């Protein structure tokens, strides 16, 4: 079948290419409905990756956050018209003791292989999660939520002290979803959010309290924290976390940084801290994320607030417009895929 793939060829240059879909027997054919732009997509689009990375990975279709409609399932497990969330991870069939998203041979859409900016996507059945009856645009945030849930799962396996209070650093989309996941899964816990921008922090109305990073009141302490800052801000954020966190607390790292970050290991040793790395998510995290959206009204309501803009895509120019708008938007830019 002929497919159209919208690939980033170079900085700010997206072009359509025509390709025959390599249709593996049994794959389910899906048409994307909603695609959300992630910070990683934005970095590629703006050329803010190292030159050798860009040379190696481009041309490549961006986007790994997507929902879609099933067009055809030769295996008959999914019905035509059924709404699904797409899983970007293609796990390597290696050591089953290691989570799929950490196996070094796993592939990930929009990082080395084409992402979801295509007219159709052929995926194995187990990379699609049916949404159920109340389908809406917010399911496009399942990937982001699955990363937060994966981080919480990892935290749970290392946590040695109480889970009564959490600090989340980062007032962007990841910080929002991380804080929201904590709010939904630990409804009685105190959730403190740390950021720099007033208009962004105002959106965290479900948090116990929000703070500017330079106006933290003395004496504030919490059990665990989650870093959702990334880039050059990571270093200062981690340093501040280590100052405020309780001994034996967990610091979960989620922010991606292009550069190496200095960490004061003396404090890590003194306080007996746990540093947990988190990246991406696997199918189990996705299932939990979709279930949380489906079953938790608080989650559904607040995810709606995460949308900065929904842009209908009918032409290649609309795609460029969406990426340009995303640079200006505080939170998520969603593309309604009508191309």
């Amino acid at each position, binding site marked *: 079948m*002929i497919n159209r793939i919208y690939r980033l060829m170079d900085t700010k240059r997206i072009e359509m290419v*025509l*390709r*025959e879909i390599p249709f593996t027997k049994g794959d389910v054919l899906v048409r994307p409905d909603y695609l959300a732009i992630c910070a990683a997509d934005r970095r590629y689009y703006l050329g803010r990756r190292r030159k050798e990375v860009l040379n190696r990975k481009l*041309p490549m279709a961006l986007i790994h956050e997507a929902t879609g*409609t099933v067009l*055809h399932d030769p295996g008959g497990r999914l019905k*035509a018209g059924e709404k699904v969330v797409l899983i970007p991870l293609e796990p390597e069939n290696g050591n089953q003791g290691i989570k799929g998203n950490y196996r070094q041979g796993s592939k990930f859409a929009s990082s080395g292989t084409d992402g979801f900016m295509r007219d159709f996507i052929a995926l194995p059945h187990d990379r699609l999660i049916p949404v159920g009856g109340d389908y809406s645009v917010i399911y496009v945030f399942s990937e982001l939520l699955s990363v937060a849930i994966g981080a919480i799962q990892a935290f749970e396996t290392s946590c040695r002290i109480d889970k009564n209070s959490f600090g989340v650093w980062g007032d962007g989309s990841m910080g929002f979803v991380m804080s929201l996941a904590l709010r939904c899964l630990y409804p009685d816990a105190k959730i403190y959010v740390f950021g720099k921008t007033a208009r962004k922090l105002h959106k965290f109305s479900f948090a116990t309290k929000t703070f500017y990073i330079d106006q933290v009141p003395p004496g504030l302490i919490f059990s665990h924290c989650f870093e959702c800052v990334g880039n050059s801000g990571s270093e200062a954020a981690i340093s501040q976390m280590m100052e405020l966190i309780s001994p034996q607390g967990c610091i979960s790292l989620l922010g991606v940084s292009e550069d190496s970050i200095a960490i004061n290991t003396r404090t890590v040793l003194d306080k007996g801290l746990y540093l947990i790395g988190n990246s991406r998510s696997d199918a189990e995290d996705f299932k939990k994320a979709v279930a949380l959206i489906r079953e938790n009204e608080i989650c559904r309501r607040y995810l709606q607030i995460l949308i900065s803009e929904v842009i209908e895509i009918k032409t290649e120019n609309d795609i460029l417009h969406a990426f340009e708008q995303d640079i200006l938007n505080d939170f998520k830019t969603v593309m309604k895929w009508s*191309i």
Partner: protein
Amino acid sequence: MIYAGILAAGLGVRMHRLDMPKQFLPLGNKPIIIHTLEQFFINPLIGRIIIVAPDSWKIYTEDLLARYDSMGKECFVIIGGRNKVESIDAIVRYIDETWGIADDDVLIAHDAIRPFITQRIINDNIDSARCYGAANTAIMTNDAILVSKDGFLLDEVPPHEIMYAEQTPQTYMLAMLKNAIDKAVAGGVKLNEENELPRLYIKAGNRMCLVRGEYSNMKIINPYDLEVANALLKERKV
């Protein structure tokens, strides 16, 4: 019901391959017509598909269809006419005789030799036909259009900004289309002499709106087009 009519009745004289009409020639790993059909197989709005084939190639078309997964879509092969207007008329009559025509039935007619059609074009055609009665797919011309009655002297250069090149699909509310054809035939029009159905349709006092096509929604008519189409599908370095 939305019917797709796939126009595959041409014999491909311009392809210089008299052994096989162009719609059956391979593009990538499949015949051109199968690529085209697949875009209609997967569109959830399309109900039934009717393919008009040349008389002598009807059985071959049926064999070809049997070899590929139609993804649950019902397909019917009928014999086409001498030109596009007669072929679409044959589809209208076949639908009328087989199922009858309901007021909300739609026919989206598309050239078999335009395999790069997009889902957006199909959906926009159906939406527009439902709103305005009929839709035609068009793109702005890149070249200025010249009018010459004898092919030697230039008679006219129409303003570039109002010139469009027609593609397919053409989409009609079926009942209105049948009326327009019946009226034209009753008025003495010979369908084999009228090459443009939209002309006949708007002459009957109907409206037809334009849907934006794509330059890539190209027609594969001659060997050069086929080479370009095959090249478009190949992986290449930037």
